């Protein structure tokens, strides 16, 4: 209890100290120191937990903390669930977070809101840890929305910039669209299983004991369809958080935040929450075949789409952001075909090399005085040599360089090839589509990654002399985290590959991931044809040489291509026009509907016929009544006569009946 409590709550404590302390005049150095020390401790503890759970076969734990809600048959409490999946996530989250904390000491040195920044970072880490240790869907949702909110704060960290505020809002609202669906998914789960507790859910679904049929909208769903619908709803939630196709538009804009934030939140941890959630719910998703088909389809589409957009972007952070989007697509493909181990492994390795790339990019941006446009960089290799090599390592890992059939390769090589192979052997409707798209994407990935390297570090110097005058390598406090991440990007693939999806799979996962009896994909990926193993290798090599050709040998090609195929180029440059489309469809309509309801609905109709109408009506009648009082006696007698006649007539008619 104390051990895991420390892992989860130390960041919260650090956040409170830095945050409240910031108000009451604790110096920035103190808040930096406190949060960093706490995070390093948490990271160390997480690795201990990881080895204890994953390798010493300690059974998974449930640690109750506190009561939360009890409402008749609906109960959910604060509790930790510690198993291998949690342990993996603990390691990813706390390690990257600790390194980002340290890196930020250097990166944010000149920023006035430093205490606030560290408070947010630690708060984010706390929320993320709550998410991954959750033992029920509601606690997942707590962490889920919590990280979304802190992400909102961090994207808008430089609150004086309008663009940052806009991006923060956009991120939160699009995430909320996903959360809307996630909530409905939770309702559906509760209807089906009478519980939101993971243990109960997994037990019941395994025994086929869903309590009742689900009536959703106009459909009466049998068990199979109900599971499909519920899983789809949950998956849409994951799409929002993990920036999948259609709900992806917030991620590139989120790059408005400080770069360490992009590394921690928008690459390594928060955006992988969707992947984690589906993996966590694998015992249920395994039985929802249609939903899994959709997941594969969306994942593959995202991977391809984001890579195509990444080809032409000029902002260094946006290229990496699209790359993240694309890699998340890979993870979802693996989830969809049932290769959960491969997916989580890619999550694990991706966290290291993508954080490395982002922090490396941050180091570059730091060197060129905040410039992010790659067209104004170039030739930086000699000025920031360490950063250069770190970025090379990150790129090697991202593109998945390695020799097929051997155990030589960067971490991305193992995880990414495993996913491509799993798509090949996968048996759901979309797996063939996914396989080919992922293979093409591997080529695109290689091209845009090397394009980035060549544009930034090679070729002519395109920055102004003034900027070049200030160029210098980052301080050690920023480089050491890069080194550690680089070590991870190079070696964790080789070290952990047997456990995540190799020989020691069952011993390592210890039932934290569920695979149905007829799902033997984890076995099948070790027996794919030779050409499937080698195909990605050839494609990434071609990608490298094409980038070399385009950006080193004959730098005029890209420009000629962009004018020749200007339609395609613009289509890609404008990110398939999603922002424009959504702006037209949703943003403007919201204003229009709002104004219509307000001015017409409330103003003209309800008030017009309601209170204002009644008031006008009463005034009108009063005026008429006033006019009736003419003062002439014969008018009154006349009216009286009519009245009496009427009354008498009525009485006569009544007596006749």
């Amino acid at each position: 209890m104390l051990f895991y409590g420390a892992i989860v709550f130390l960041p919260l404590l650090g956040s409170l100290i830095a945050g409240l302390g910031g108000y009451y005049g604790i110096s920035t150095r103190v808040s930096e120191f406190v949060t960093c020390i706490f995070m390093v401790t948490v990271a160390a503890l997480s690795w201990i937990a990881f080895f204890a759970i994953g390798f010493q076969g300690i059974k998974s734990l449930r640690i109750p903390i506190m009561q939360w809600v009890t409402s008749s048959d609906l109960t959910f409490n604060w509790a930790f669930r510690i198993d291998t999946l949690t342990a993996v996530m603990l390691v990813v989250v706390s390690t990257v977070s600790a390194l980002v904390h340290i890196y930020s000491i250097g990166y944010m040195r000149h920023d006035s809101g430093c205490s606030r920044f560290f408070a947010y970072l630690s708060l984010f880490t706390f929320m993320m840890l709550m998410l991954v240790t959750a033992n029920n869907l509601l606690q997942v949702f707590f962490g889920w929305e919590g990280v979304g909110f802190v992400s909102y704060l961090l994207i808008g960290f430089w609150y004086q910039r309008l663009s940052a505020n806009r991006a923060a809002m956009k991120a939160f609202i699009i995430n909320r669209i996903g959360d809307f669906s996630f909530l409905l998914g939770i309702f559906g789960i509760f209807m089906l299983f009478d519980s939101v507790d993971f243990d109960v859910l997994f037990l019941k679904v395994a025994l086929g004991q869903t309590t009742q049929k689900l009536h959703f909208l106009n459909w009466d769903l049998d068990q199979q369809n109900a599971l499909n619908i519920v899983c789809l709803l949950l998956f849409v939630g994951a799409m929002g958080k993990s920036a999948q196709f259609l709900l992806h538009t917030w991620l590139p804009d989120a790059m408005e935040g400080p770069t360490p934030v992009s590394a921690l939140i928008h690459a390594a941890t928060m955006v992988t929450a969707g992947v984690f959630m589906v993996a966590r719910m694998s015992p249920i998703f395994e039985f929802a075949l249609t939903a899994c088909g959709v997941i594969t389809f969306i994942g593959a589409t995202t991977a391809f789409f984001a890579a195509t957009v990444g080809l032409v972007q000029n902002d260094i952070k946006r290229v990496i952001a699209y790359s993240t989007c694309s890699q998340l697509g890979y993870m979802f493909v693996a989830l969809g075909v049932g290769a959960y181990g491969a997916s989580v492994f890619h999550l694990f390795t991706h966290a290291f090399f993508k954080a490395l790339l982002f922090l490396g990019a941050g180091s570059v941006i730091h060197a060129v005085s905040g410039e992010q446009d790659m067209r104004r960089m170039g030739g930086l290799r000699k000025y920031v040599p360490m950063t250069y090599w770190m970025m090379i390592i990150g790129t090697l890992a991202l593109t998945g360089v390695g020799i097929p059939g051997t155990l030589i390769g960067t971490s991305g090589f193992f995880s990414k090839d495993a996913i491509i192979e799993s798509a090949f052997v996968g048996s759901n409707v979309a797996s063939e589509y996914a396989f080919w798209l992922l293979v093409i994407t591997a080529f695109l990935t290689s091209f845009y990654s090397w394009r980035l390297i060549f544009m930034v570090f090679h070729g002519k110097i395109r920055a102004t002399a003034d900027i070049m005058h200030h160029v210098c390598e980052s301080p050690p406090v920023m480089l050491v985290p890069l080194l550690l991440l680089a070590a991870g990007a190079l070696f964790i693939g080789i070290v952990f590959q047997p456990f995540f999806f190799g020989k020691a799979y069952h011993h390592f996962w210890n039932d934290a991931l569920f695979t149905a009896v007829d799902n033997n994909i984890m076995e099948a990926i070790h027996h794919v044809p030779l050409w499937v193993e080698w195909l990605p290798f050839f494609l990434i090599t071609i990608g490298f040489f094409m980038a070399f050709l385009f950006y080193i040998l004959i730098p005029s090609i890209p420009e000629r291509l962009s004018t020749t195929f200007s339609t395609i180029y613009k289509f890609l440059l404008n990110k398939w026009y999603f922002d424009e489309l959504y702006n037209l469809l949703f943003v403007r309509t919201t204003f229009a509907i709002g104004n219509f309801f307000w001015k017409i609905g409330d103003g003209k109709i309800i008030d017009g016929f309601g209170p204002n109408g009644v008031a006008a009506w009463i005034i009108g009648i009063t005026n008429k009544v006033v006019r009736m009082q003419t003062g002439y006696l014969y008018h009154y007698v006349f009216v009286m006569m009519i009245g009496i006649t009427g009354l008498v007539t009525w009485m006569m008619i009544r007596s006749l009946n």
Partner: protein
Amino acid sequence: MTDKWPILSTLTFLPLFGALLILQIKGNSKKARYDIRNIAFLTTFFVFILSLIILADFNVELAGFQMEDKIDWFGNGISYHMGIDGISVLFVVLCAFLMPFCILASWETIKEQLKEYMIAFLILETMIIGVFCALNAFLFYVFFEGSLIPIFIIIGVWGGKGRVYASLKFFLYTLLGSLLMLIAIMAMYWQARTLDIPALLNHTFPPHMQTWLFLAFLASFAVKIPMWPVHTWLPDAHVEAPTAGSVILAGVLLKLGGYGLLRFSLPMFPLASAEFTPLIFVFSSVAILYASFVAFVQTDIKKLIAYSSIAHMGYVTMGIFSANMQGVEGAVFQMLSHGIISGALFLCVGVIYDRMHTREIVAFGGLVNNMPKYASVFLVCTIANIGLPGTSGFLGEFLTLIGVFRVKSWVAVIATTGVILSATYALYLCRRVIFGALDKEKLQDILDLSLREKFILYPMVVLIVFFGIYPSPILDVVRCTVEALVRNYHEIVLI
């Protein structure tokens, strides 16, 4: 009359006693104003303490009414009968909790006729606590209508420029509802020969009569809640009301409607309730969508929050008529949580209104630069308003939604879109008021929260987070009462 000390009556009339004390103070000297404020604050503070004592003394294991006082009045079932159950006790505490803050919020802002202002608030407190404690329909009616007069005066006298129009509109709407309710109460007496609420709860009204009684009561409660389409008085009333008036209006007065539905409509006219449930569901989901969209385009901060209140009350009506444990518990929780959250939000608006004397959104921007503490409080209230888990706003929405999902998934799906819409208008507001650069000339010297304002806002923020993480203090109190309510309902209405 029992031998015990009539603690509920003491609680109810204590504010009135305070008002009498204030009445004795003559003049408008500095000393007099000082005394007036202190007496008002101390009275409401003692009421709050007393309400906590009552809560501590309350037996949560019992479903029925407790701490009853009963005196014969007009005989034949019209008696002075007070008592509380698991639902009403919490509303009493909520009202007693908010009142001292209202007095504090008016500390410096009310310049004219301070004495009358404070008296109006104290009478209002008596009336509201009376409504929640009344166990006789006649007494309920007296308090229910009585509460209108002080708030009507507060808006009409100490309000903004359009106060006459706003209070007239408010009056027209409530008049309609009240008259119908009065007729319904008379009809009930005619049929049941008593107006004692516990007796009425055991009385079964004939089905056709239930329909008419239900509609008559609904007319009154729907205006109070306010339910779409009788909501348009609320934005105007809020905009014109002084800060404390808005707080008490949004915090407690709106809850009279929801409370009425739980006290009368659902248990006394179950057949009619079941019959009209689809209608209520439609109105509730329309309210959530409609009010959220309208909130989005508002230019006045208070109006925006007022429309957001309408949307949030949609969850309440929806939850009540889902008539299951989660729905009803969620509705009660939502009302209490919204009482605190909307109260805090209106207080936040008051803070900047006091400084700038405007509520136009465009007049602000970049407040976080000069007012970091204010910005933090505003942000916490905002995220509670949009129902972020970990704040009390989430649990109310979640429970009502899950309650409705069990009955009609369609309604839940539509209502759940509220989570997207609320985020949209609330964050859009934050972006324009709190964030951005501080480039408006007039805002350059704006000051952060004063000690008095901190004392008002910080406890609310703490409670919002506390109940979001640990709602048991509320849920435990309402459980037995709601269980009995739902059980009785389903004995008559089979699903």
